[in-house]
């Protein structure tokens, strides 16, 4: 009887340990939304695209800030995008900064990423850009 209960307790302990180990190794971290950086030179136009265009094409920013870089003549509004994913064995991220001109147009960007390259995204189209055939 003692032996049976001891065995059952050991079994429970082992099972619990196995479940916890498996749970820990499969722990996944994910934060933010991954921005599609391929649109920065293809769909967005410097000094033409507006904040609304940027929000439509890239999505809402993760954060906002300002930049006064050495080549700027005045501080610029800056939007930041951040995405991170990882496990206990590896963790990678992408950060994208988007700069706006004084009059509120898209001016440029800087991004860096340790994520593997993303698959090409499906091009987003504004509802207003969809024209009925003649």
């Amino acid at each position: 009887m003692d032996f049976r209960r001891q065995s059952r307790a050991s079994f429970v302990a082992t099972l619990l340990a196995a479940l916890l180990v498996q749970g820990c190794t499969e722990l996944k971290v994910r934060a933010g939304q991954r921005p599609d950086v391929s649109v920065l030179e293809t769909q967005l136009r410097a000094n033409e695209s507006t904040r609304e265009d940027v929000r439509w094409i890239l999505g809402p920013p993760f954060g906002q800030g300002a930049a006064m870089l050495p080549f700027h003549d005045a501080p610029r509004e800056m939007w930041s995008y951040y995405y991170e994913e990882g496990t206990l064995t590896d963790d990678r991220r992408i950060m994208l900064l988007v700069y706006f001109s004084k009059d509120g147009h898209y001016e440029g960007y800087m991004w860096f990423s340790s994520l593997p390259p993303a698959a090409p995204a499906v091009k987003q189209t504004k509802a207003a850009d969809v024209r009925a055939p003649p």
Partner: protein
Amino acid sequence: MRLAFVNGAIVASVAAILLTVSGCAPTVAYGVKPQTDRLSQFVPGQTKAADILLSLGEPRGKGAAHPSPGLPPREIWFYEYVRSDGKTANLDLLLVFMNGDSYDGHLWFSSVDTFKKSYNK
């Protein structure tokens, strides 16, 4: 008989606590610490990509910078090192700006342990 079952339950609890403490919150590190002390050897326009690879190693990622239409775009080589003990995380980030095959500049920043200690006093 009852004692044996209690012992088994204690073993299970201790195992769970140990796994929770040491298994789910281990010290982890990702990437390689950037050798920022070697950046002073680089000369814009003269140091080549191969020299940077030899000095800093393979970057962990890439990127691009085109902050203003009046400036030419630049490729970025991204180096990062992250370490965490489950309570705090420290980060070393280095961006190396490339103009074609040549070094064009860099930017790095890092969380510093001494700051954390003074901040936590």
